[in-house]
């Protein structure tokens, strides 16, 4: 159980700056996720915390103690890798027991602990098998078991669910969440799947090209994204983003989608245009006219069960919206309404939230 603080951390490989000026604190017992597209440096952050890489600049502190002098084995953190990294020549029992055996624990202690962990993860009957005889989900659990058994100060998880199929991923997500609740160990999680990040975490840091764009609770990320990148990254399907012209500053009005809209802003834009965003779930579609309703043509529909995602063509601008299942057809002219209170506005220059 530990606070992990990253102060002014930079990491460069040769001339490439992979991590730029990271400054944040992961709180004790928190489930903290770094999310971002591939190659944005998320795995590097985990390696830095684990001690497998050294920061080029800056310090990392565990409970306010700098850990730069501690080797990875002495930092008391456990890591679960994307490829599980199980020892192929050892059985499940031996894999899970390994950290304890390295510490030269007594045989009875090792047996008992491995049994306990295996029960907890539901692999109690697999103990004699080799990794190559297990399915992906089972291997994942063995990897988790090996991490848990040490009761480390922190868990580091590097995209542990990426190699699993969709259904298994959902199952394991729930298991990981349950484990975190039961064990209460500080967890630093890394993924490129924003849905995973949102559903598992207490707080999420959205990374792009080595910089943290926003670090807040999932709800906050969804409701109030700090910039265009976060707005477009969080949420599935992604937020609709389009250019809009400022028609009036006080009160603030913009022209877009063939209408004049009045969004809520707390700052003034730097120019005459802004970037506006609205989530597909906040755009209503109907075949009958809606109050303040605007018209558009349906390009295609994507049924997802109880409702459909509808791609609209609004005078050349593509807008995704939501409709009840079966209500509209491709090629139809329909009416749509944008919930103005749900509009997000970003400065055209800085891309930051207004």
């Amino acid at each position: 159980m530990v606070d992990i603080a990253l102060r002014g951390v930079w990491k460069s490989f040769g001339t490439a700056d992979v991590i730029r000026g990271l400054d944040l604190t992961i709180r004790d017992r928190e489930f903290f996720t770094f999310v971002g597209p591939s190659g944005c440096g998320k795995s590097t952050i985990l390696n830095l915390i684990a001690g497998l890489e050294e920061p080029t600049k800056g310090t990392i502190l565990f409970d306010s103690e700098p850990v730069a002098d501690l080797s990875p084995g002495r930092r008391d953190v456990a890591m679960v890798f994307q490829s599980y990294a199980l020892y192929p020549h050892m059985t499940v029992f031996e894999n899970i027991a390994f950290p304890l055996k390295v510490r030269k624990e007594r045989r009875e202690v090792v047996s008992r602990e491995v049994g306990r962990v295996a029960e907890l993860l539901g692999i109690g009957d697999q103990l004699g098998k080799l990794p190559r005889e297990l399915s992906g989900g089972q291997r994942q659990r063995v990897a988790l078991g090996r991490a848990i058994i040490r009761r480390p100060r922190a868990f580091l998880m590097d995209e542990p669910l990426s190699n699993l199929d969709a259904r298994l991923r959902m199952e394991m997500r729930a298991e990981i969440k349950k484990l975190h609740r039961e064990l209460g160990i500080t967890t630093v999680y890394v993924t490129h799947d924003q849905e995973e990040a949102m559903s598992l975490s207490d707080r999420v840091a959205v990374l792009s090209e080595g910089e943290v764009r926003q670090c807040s609770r999932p709800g906050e990320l969804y409701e109030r994204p700090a910039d265009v990148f976060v707005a477009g990254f969080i949420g599935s399907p992604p937020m609709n983003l389009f250019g809009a012209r400022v028609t009036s500053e006080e009160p603030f009005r913009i022209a877009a989608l063939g209408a004049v809209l009045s969004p809520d802003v707390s700052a003034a834009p730097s120019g005459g245009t802004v970037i506006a965003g609205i989530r597909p779930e906040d755009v209503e579609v109907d075949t009958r006219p809606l109050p303040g309703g605007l018209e558009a043509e349906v390009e295609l529909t994507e049924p997802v069960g109880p409702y459909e995602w509808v791609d609209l063509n609004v005078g050349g601008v593509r807008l995704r919206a939501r409709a009840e299942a079966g209500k509209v057809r491709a090629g139809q002219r329909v009416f749509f309404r944008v919930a103005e209170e749900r509009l997000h506005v970003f400065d055209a220059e800085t891309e930051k939230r207004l």
Partner: protein
Amino acid sequence: MVTGSQKGIRSVLFWAGLVAAVAYCLGPFVWQFITSLKPAAELTMLPPVLPTRPVLENYRSVFAARPFLRIILNSLVVASGTTFFSLAIGSLAAFALARLPLRGRHIFLAFVLSVSMFPPIATVSPLYIVIRFLGLRDTLTALVITYTTFSLPLTIWILTNFFREVPREIYLAALLDGCTPFQIFYRIFLPLAAPGLSATAILVFIFSWNEFLFALTFTSTAASRTIPVAIALFPGVHEVPWGEIAAASVVVTVPVVVLVFVFQRRIVEGLTMGAMKG
């Protein structure tokens, strides 16, 4: 479409090729074996015939008239020692070259390989001087040291490739589990490289067992002589004891054949460098 007769021809050709290859490889050994069982009178008969009555006197005289048992022991000690040291030093070197972040790794490996390109005959004289200087003339130690240096390049090459195949994340996982690099070496990398170790061991063993040039140069008495040299010295001034030479050859080849059969599967795995799944 392959017709029945085409298949038949292919089959015949295949078996013919197989028989030819086996005959070529086993031929000399079978010949020696038959020769070793011939009574003295029939040894030099032309055309060569099968023994009318197989006899064991050649084998008896090999062991009775000469200190052959001692010679076999010498060879065993040298071959085992060489194998052990080659593997011990080679595996440690391979681990460092495969895993630790060293600069100039590739240059070092190329250098190691280039050592093995020296023709042994070019190095015999200088090595003899060194061995004499160290006071190791006519000792088994001299042979073990020399053979080890010549087998190390191959050992390092094979084992480095094996260690490289172990996924990096396994190494990192072991580090985080609290292992020192040396513990990672003997707990994880050595077991995973077992096929490579077997293949290398057998190759080094055979090399030492059959080596002639250095054994001849560095040893002078039966105290440290090895098998190839001993057999080469069987012929006297007036006669060549073909029967005894044959018997001795059979005796010394059998252990190696047995070893290869026992480790056969591991050797094939090792030489084809099976991929490892983690």
